[in-house]
């Protein structure tokens, strides 16, 4: 009984090792599988994965309208105070006061690209962009205003 286990152990071990060698051998002979990208050389045809997280951007449509209601859910969700929402009060045609976004301040230098703000956003106003070349000569350039000048909230977004 002991001997049987001993011998089957040896055969199982050899079998599993050979399985591993088959995989690495496959990769060795199939150079098409290589996923390395020659980054600075292929800047134009860079092929980033869909879920790559570069920086937070706010989506604007062709009428320069965004979907941010200024609810500050992203600001609360952010673990390291990257986002600061400054709100104002718009007056609706009916004469009611309504809270709206004034400035979406985004500190890229503090951001860890954790995606929590995008998940927290109830109206899908922000998303993660694919840009990643963020180096600048002065730190102040990393503090960004995400809503474009003159933009306003899209009609019907609550």
């Amino acid at each position: 009984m002991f001997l049987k286990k001993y011998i089957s152990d040896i055969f199982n071990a050899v079998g599993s090792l050979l399985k591993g060698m088959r995989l690495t051998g496959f990769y060795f002979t199939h150079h098409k599988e290589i996923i390395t990208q020659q980054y600075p050389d292929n800047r134009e045809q860079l092929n980033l994965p869909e879920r790559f997280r570069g920086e937070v951007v706010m989506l604007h449509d062709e009428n320069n309208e965004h979907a941010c209601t200024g609810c500050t859910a992203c600001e609360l969700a952010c673990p390291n105070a990257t986002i600061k929402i400054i709100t104002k009060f718009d007056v609706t045609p009916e004469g009611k006061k309504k809270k709206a976004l004034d400035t979406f301040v985004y500190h890229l230098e503090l951001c860890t690209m954790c995606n929590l703000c995008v998940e927290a956003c109830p109206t899908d106003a922000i998303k993660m962009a694919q840009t990643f070349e963020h180096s600048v000569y002065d730190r102040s350039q990393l503090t960004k205003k995400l809503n474009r000048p003159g933009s306003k909230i899209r009609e019907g977004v609550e």
Partner: protein
Amino acid sequence: MLSLEGITDSIHNWLNHALNPTLAMLSEFVMVGLCVITLFAMLGLVLIMMERKVSAYMQVRIGPNRVGPGGMFQTLADTLKLVVKEGLTPDGADHFLFNLAPFVVLSASMLALAPVAFAKGFQVWDLPIGILYVSAISSVSVIGILMAGWASNNKYSLLGAMRSGAQIVSYELSAGLSVLTIVILTGSLRISDIIQAQQDGWWIFKGHIPAIIAFVIFLIAVTAETNRAPFDMAEAESELTAGFHTEYSGMKFALFFLAEYVNIFIVCAIGAALFFGGWMPFHIGHWESFNHIMDFIPSSIWFTGKTFALIFVIMWFRWTFPRLRIDQLLNLEWKYLLPISMANLLLTTFVAIKGWYF
């Protein structure tokens, strides 16, 4: 036909003709020494490049590709960098032993190169106990490793060195027993005899089951003996930073690195000589015409091809298998490899007595 044997013979004759025998011999020593050093440098560059490319392709990467065509000169650039770096000796280290250790390791592998047959009649020293000599010399390098570990005055270095000692001492047994398999079949310890015995087929084919078992055990044991992953307990990057050469830098570190790769080459050359006929072309029994066609490929190419194929297999091991823990390592040797190789030795003896090999 131009062959390495012809070149060495003509140099030997010319030297003996021009000088008196003692001087001729001395100048031959110098030439052999220079050749060996050149071979070492070339091997270091080529094997490290090969390792980096092989590992890259196996890990779905590209590997070095910037210096020279296809990254060919990367290792040259690295060597240049190591040469100009400072070879630091730590304050607390035993200076003499610390500086001596890399040379002990390197000269051990240099000595082990002596009986390796590179081509037909092209051998530094065809001594009658070639195989015994190689297995004796290859365990000298453990002295250098222990020396390095002890002299570094660093707990990681010492641990790495002690592990290396335990590992080499135990794996030497099964390596030796698997070598003995072929010695039994051949009846000689001389490398040239072993190769000559494979004139009508390599031992891996002629010796069938026992030879194949011995070959597998040999491959595992020499991987362990050269301290390579999956048996890299001596270096153990994850636990011991770099094991016995933690404190080494610059060219002294490079010598350890070089010795590792030269050792791989030597064990693969010995493995090729034992199981695949060294420089012997691929011969099948008495198929005279087939054998004759095979003879047209020079023996040095056969030798290089076989050796590098074995080196590739060992690299394949390194980049596929997970590392063993030190206790698993010793378990593998004492519980599996040693009993199997002993049983295999018995089987070989039986086969040899009965004449059941081809």
